[in-house]
């Protein structure tokens, strides 16, 4: 015998990105500064990664403060008030508290009242994972507006003496507001194509767990990030190009209909190899935020989108292919319409 009946909101409405915002930390770190600690050169870094300089946060530019700033800009861009936000999702691997989640403090500082708030750990795919969750929440009626934030202070976990990673990682925050479209023509977020590959967890990872870093031999020390660059390059350049193509197919468009290609800003060479592999038409503008920003993991896609909007490379209504991929390994890609 069933007693009572559960009522749920009518589901499956269109969703879209309503606003985008970003925060770039104030410290500009040149390649010259990086090579003081590693056997490398400005030219080597530029040719191997496309990075000319990167942004690192000061002590005052915290995961929380950078997120709040990026989120405020995204909310203003969307014309959404903080109290209208039903859920805050923060994608990060550099909030150095196991608990509580960064999202809760960010929601509070934004004035988002009692909005649901939690962090997700999906490394460089974090923003796309979060966007997928947000879209599904709005589509199902779980929330009216969801704030997705990608934020990192990778400089905290970077070994400045490791010549394979010291020049890559950087800091920053980016945010997007997701809400409902007015009608079916306003589908603004395509289906996500995502996945994981735990067989290759060693390719990019924190070197050791906290207990080992604090109490193990040679400790205490920060548990720095380590990466096996060449296999990552191969995986990202080819396997991720296939996922990117699947995301385009899943959205029911062709690659010729894209206006923007905004991959995670991992390395300019990966971006170039993916574009070649995808046979991206020349008219598609490619995000190259990494040159001035470095690799900011979960923050890189919204940061890159913000720069493209700023420079006019991206305009409202454009179709953008976004794809995140990184430690896990994990990946996620989707086509979105620029607000």
């Amino acid at each position: 015998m069933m007693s009572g009946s559960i009522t749920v909101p009518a589901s499956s409405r269109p969703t879209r990105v309503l606003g985008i915002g970003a925060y770039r930390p104030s410290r500009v770190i040149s390649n010259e500064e990086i090579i003081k600690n590693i056997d490398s050169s400005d030219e080597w870094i530029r040719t191997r990664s496309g990075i000319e300089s990167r942004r690192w946060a000061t002590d005052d530019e915290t995961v929380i403060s950078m997120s709040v700033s990026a989120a405020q800009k995204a909310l203003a861009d969307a014309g959404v008030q903080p109290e209208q936000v039903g859920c805050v999702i923060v994608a990060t691997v550099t909030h150095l508290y196991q608990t509580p989640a960064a999202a809760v403090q960010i929601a509070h500082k934004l004035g988002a009242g009692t909005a649901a708030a939690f962090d997700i750990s999906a490394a460089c795919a974090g923003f796309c994972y979060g966007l997928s969750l947000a879209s599904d929440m709005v589509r199902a009626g779980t929330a009216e507006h969801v704030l997705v934030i990608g934020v990192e202070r990778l400089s905290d976990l970077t070994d400045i003496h490791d010549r394979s990673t010291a020049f890559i990682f950087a800091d920053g925050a980016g945010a997007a507001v997701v809400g409902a479209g007015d009608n079916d023509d306003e589908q603004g977020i395509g289906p996500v194509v995502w996945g994981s590959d735990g067989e290759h967890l060693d390719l990019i990872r924190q070197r050791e767990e906290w207990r080992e870093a604090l109490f193990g031999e040679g400790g205490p020390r920060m548990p720095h990030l380590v990466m096996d660059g060449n296999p990552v390059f191969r995986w990202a350049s080819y396997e991720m190009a296939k996922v990117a193509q699947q995301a385009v197919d899943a959205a029911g468009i062709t690659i010729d209909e894209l206006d923007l290609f905004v991959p995670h800003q991992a390395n300019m060479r990966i971006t170039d190899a993916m574009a070649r592999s995808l046979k991206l038409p020349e008219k598609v503008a490619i995000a190259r935020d990494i040159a001035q920003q470095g690799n900011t993991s979960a923050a890189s896609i919204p940061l890159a989108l913000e720069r493209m909007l700023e420079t006019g490379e991206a305009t409202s209504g454009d179709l953008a292919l976004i794809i995140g991929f990184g430690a896990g390994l994990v990946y996620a890609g989707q086509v979105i319409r620029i607000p």
Partner: protein
Amino acid sequence: MASTEEIRSGLAEIVNEITGVPADDVQLEKSFTDDLDIDSLSMIEVVVAAEEKFGVKIPEDEVKNLATVGDAVSYIEKGQA
């Protein structure tokens, strides 16, 4: 099965497409690094494209042994045999 010259010229096309090095420069005795100025990341791209084009598998550990265009061509020939 492709001839040595067919493999060399196929590889030359790949190298040209990925790095912009003129296909005619991609001769058997040329070193990828010293003569053609191809770095390790471009080499990965060349290898992946060659695997697809010639239907062979070139494991990561093997790539560092392929110093010259001739090394790569003979590895592909053996793989196809």
